[in-house]
């Protein structure tokens, strides 16, 4: 295994993505080394099986390789897309009902518009969201975790938690409101002089 050119280690995501379009495999490997450790725990959390998680992690980067031109590579935005892709592929493997493959293809089809408003997933954002999740009331956190990591619909959540549909919808909305607030605080801090 050759070690990577030292230049690639310091290249921004946008430059590495540009190299993908000219079929530079080293650039993809550098992207894997840079972002794989963010995607792997997510995939493991969803599918739990280690071997399957390893395969899905590779699938994410193979898909990135074959669809490099689809992704806008502003700093922080590529990671957001990779996380979305990883979640969709993992849930597709978990649920096997075609719904998540459809979600992935829909999001790719709207890539230009959908990527425009992705927040940059930098350290501030990550810590802020993590804190917001940790401080959610237990019922809200459990509901949003089941929706996110198990891909449950409202009806499935209501059945699983043995709660009325309205209660489940309300908990999800409240949890998402708090997360939105946490992201909004990060943006405000950045904007303030």
């Amino acid at each position: 295994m050759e070690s990577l050119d030292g230049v690639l280690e310091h290249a921004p995501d946008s430059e590495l993505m540009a190299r993908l379009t000219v079929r530079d495999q080293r650039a993809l490997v550098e992207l894997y080394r840079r972002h794989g450790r963010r995607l792997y725990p997510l995939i493991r959390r969803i599918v739990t099986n280690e071997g399957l998680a390893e395969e899905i992690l590779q699938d994410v980067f193979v898909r990135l390789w074959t669809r490099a031109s689809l992704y806008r590579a502003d700093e922080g935005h590529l990671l957001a897309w990779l996380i979305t892709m990883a979640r969709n592929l993992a849930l597709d493997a978990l649920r096997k009902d075609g719904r998540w493959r459809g979600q992935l293809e829909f999001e790719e089809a709207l890539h230009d518009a959908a990527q425009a408003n992705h927040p940059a997933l930098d350290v501030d954002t990550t810590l802020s969201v993590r804190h917001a999740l940790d401080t959610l009331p237990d019922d809200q956190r459990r509901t949003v975790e089941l929706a996110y990591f198990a891909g449950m619909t409202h009806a499935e959540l209501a059945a699983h938690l043995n709660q009325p549909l309205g209660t489940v919808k309300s908990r999800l909305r409240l949890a998402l409101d708090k997360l939105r607030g946490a992201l909004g605080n990060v943006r405000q801090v950045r904007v303030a002089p």
Partner: protein
Amino acid sequence: MIEPCHQFEGEWELLALGALEAGRGAEMRAHAAGGCARCQDRLGAALGLVGSIGAALEPMNPPAHVEARLQQRLRALEAGTTVSRGAPAWRSAGPSDRLIRPAAVAALVACAVLAWRVVDQRREIAALRARVEQAAAVVPREAPRPASPPQALPAPSTPAASTEAARAWAIERSRLAAALAQAEAARASAVTEAARGREELARLEQRLASVAREVPNGTPPATVPPVRVDDRTEEVGRLANDVRRLEAQATREAARARSYANALQVALDPGSRRVALTAVDRSAGRATASALLASDGRLVLTTADLPPLGSDKCYQLWIIRRDNPAVVSGGVLADASAGAVVHVARVEGRADAVTGFAITDEPAGGSASSRGRKLLFGAFR
């Protein structure tokens, strides 16, 4: 028919989450795909918000072999792009060649062995790098956060088990125990990996030195890739830095684990009292604090979200007592702005005389008596 946009307000995040039923989801997808720019914007923001949940997980390095598998898959996809090296052009044997050729073969063999040994070193260094990164990933970059409380809460020990306060107390105890276990595991793992890394680095350095001594004089034949032992020595140096960093993290985690161990001991003391400190000044922002005071005077103060201060100021804890003097310093809070922090101290005098706590901002180094703004305050009931 295009649905009016307002009907989808508040549901884009649910769509991104995948929580909507199939019919509603299909309606919204069709609307967004139909070219409504406003709703596409909403969708983009929703995908970003939902994606941030996945991004909030602690990073974890995948096993080292996954990268090799990925490269194999890429090569299979891009079949036909490998480059072969040319073989040496041997001259036809003449009288003088009978003497030269054996020497040339011997030189080729020596350089091939050397190249193989360097490739072997690279493989070992890459494997060690992966292990160091994996071990570093185990050590949290910030204070360990409590795990989610267990589904079955531990039964509070007080008779007032049905009260909300007792329930919150039980949850906090279990969270402290979880945080302690997490910190201990991270510390132990970091220490073990750092020790292993040191041993392997020492072995690698010895082998590199022996390889360097074997570099033949003169230029190797063009068919063997040029060997630069200096490059590999730099890598070993970088790995040594990684191991040192890991050892420093292990030391910090050990200190953190000791703090949590103290906190847990205080929490388990049946005579412990707990009070929440709340913001009493706007400049405290969203800061909160919680004080656990054991009957023997051990104090565990947990602070969160204290706004950063300039280098000329510090946060200081004050202990309020029924004794004289009524207010005494509990010490300067180190690293108080670094997220959730646990401070461990011991109050002077009788613990049962303590009636409350306050946190103020003071000049750097602290004050003998409080001069700053009172930011957080809490009193025992």
